[in-house]
């Protein structure tokens, strides 16, 4: 009568299986390390940086990299190393802030559209179509230009262009999951629709959202730096990678490459880090690749 007792003791929840597989996945791991290092440098910037981020030194402008200024200094005498580390603070804040907001809003729209369907679906998705009809950078640019360049506005603008990405993705996933047998069973046992959505549909829909978020964080940094670079975001003299590149632009021709090179490298590395995480995460979270 008794069937075999439960075989496995390892926690087989997708998240834990994912973490175990993460250890065997060097691509994701390296991405994770890059992003973590950038984040830690940013968080502990005051402890690590040798100078203040807006501490100019009129006696030491446009100096090439040296022991006292490892990444050199710019035209005002700001230490590039210090500002590159501090720059991570703003850029990561913008990336996480924008992605976080876009995730919350986009997923809410996507879940509602996918689960309730029909008119709701049409209205929400056409709204999303309107947003994504613009090239994302142009839309963000327009929004910041209209609202005025400030940190909150920048985050808002970048979040806005990312909302349709999440809405689409989650809607598609919800459309699949809501047809699942276990969703039918929950409905047949009288669970209210909203509970079914929250308890059964959403927890089975997250995986692609995680992947997308890491990629979007990378794009968000590019957009933030891009907008700041053209003067529509963070403004001088605050330390932000896009701003720093802009301020070094005119010196490239005269050979002071380090002013633009180091913040540029920081952007490239961080974006690459996020992308590597995203690539590997796809494998990690896909249950068929166990």
């Amino acid at each position, binding site marked *: 009568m008794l*069937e075999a007792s439960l075989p496995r003791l390892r926690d087989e929840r997708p998240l834990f299986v994912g973490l175990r597989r993460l250890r065997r996945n060097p691509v994701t791991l390296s991405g994770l390390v890059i992003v973590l290092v950038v984040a830690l440098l940013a968080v502990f910037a005051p402890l690590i940086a040798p100078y203040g981020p807006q501490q100019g030194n009129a006696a030491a402008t446009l100096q090439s990299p040296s022991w006292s200024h490892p990444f050199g200094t710019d035209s005002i005498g700001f230490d590039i190393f210090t500002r590159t580390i501090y720059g991570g603070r703003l850029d990561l804040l913008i990336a996480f802030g924008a992605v976080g907001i876009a995730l919350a809003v986009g997923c809410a729209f996507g879940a509602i559209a996918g689960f309730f369907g029909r008119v709701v679906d049409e209205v929400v998705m056409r709204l999303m179509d309107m947003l994504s009809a613009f090239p994302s950078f142009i839309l963000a640019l327009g929004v910041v230009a209209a609202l005025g360049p400030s940190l909150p506005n920048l985050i808002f603008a970048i979040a806005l262009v990312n909302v349709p990405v999440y809405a689409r993705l989650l809607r598609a996933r919800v459309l699949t999951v809501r047809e699942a*047998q276990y969703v039918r069973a929950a409905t047949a046992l*009288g669970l209210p629709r909203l509970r079914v959505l929250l308890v059964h549909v959403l927890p089975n829909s997250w995986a692609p959202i995680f992947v997308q978020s890491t990629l979007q964080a990378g794009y968000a940094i590019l957009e933030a730096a891009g907008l700041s670079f053209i003067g529509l975001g963070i403004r001088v003299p605050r330390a932000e990678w896009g701003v720093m590149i802009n301020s070094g632009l005119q010196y490239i021709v005269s050979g002071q490459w380090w002013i633009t090179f180091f913040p540029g490298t920081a952007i490239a590395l961080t974006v690459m880090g996020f992308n590597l995480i995203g690539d590997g995460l796809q494998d990690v979270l896909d249950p068929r690749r166990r």
Partner: protein
Amino acid sequence: MTAEPLLQVRGLATWFETPRGIAKVLDGLDLDVGRGEIVGLVGESGSGKSVTAYSVVRLVRPPGSVVAGRVLFEGRDLLSLPEGQMRHVRGKEISMIFQDPRGYLDPVARVGNVLNEIYRTHEQASRKEAKARALELLRAVGLPAPERVYRAYPHELSGGMAQRAMIALALACSPKLLIADEPTTALDVTIQIQIVRLLAELRTQLDLSILLITHNLSVVAEVCDRVAVMYAGEVVENGAAREIFESPRHPYTVGLLRARPRIGTVEEKLADIPGRVPDLLELPAGCRFHPRCFLADDRCRHEAPGLRPLMPDHVSRCHYAERVQEDAA
């Protein structure tokens, strides 16, 4: 005669719109489930058994819809109930279990959490009470280690254990009627018998009525009080299980019984019913079964038979119900 049946389905019609036309998957179905009864609903794949189940709880999905009929549950017509009230019927009064128990359990939710969720949907209960109830249920369905199953994810359970867990879920709020849609089909033969016997035990313990949908006649023989045989969206024969098995009164039932392997008899090969289930978009005129019937004559080709009572509790949809047995021999 006796008390009013718990469930009375009358003239139920469920149609599906297809690109080629309207498929009348159920077309005037009548079915009763009495209190404390286990009624077997049998028929080939595609005869409309599952659609019957979903129609009763009003969960037929587009492109299908219930277009006519009444589903009287304790005298109330479920088909005219507002959706809000219907939700309280599902799970609380009428529950369902399904064919593939592991597919019907949420892969990322612990069994215990789903149990609590369902219980607290219908009953006022604290988390602690819900948990106590959940463990009690898991024990009642014969699971060896309730505490562990409570914390388990579906993929950690074997098929039989998962079906027991599904039964616990369905019975969480003490429903009066359990609709079991092919509950044993996906299980090993040895487990099938266990599950069927469990259902029979629970029926007596919990004062439950069961509508058991299956194409497995051995399962029906094991536990059912009454049997309704479906063919192409209609009930073709309905009566006490013993009656149906001993003296079937419809050629289709005869065919089903012959196609069933028996232990202890040496037969060259199993008899089958020639032909196949008709296309619901191009139903044959007259009796729907006539193209496959060994009794069919001109009358069958033109005149559709109605359900005729032969004995107090035995009806058949055949012009020649009285002759079926002699001619089958």
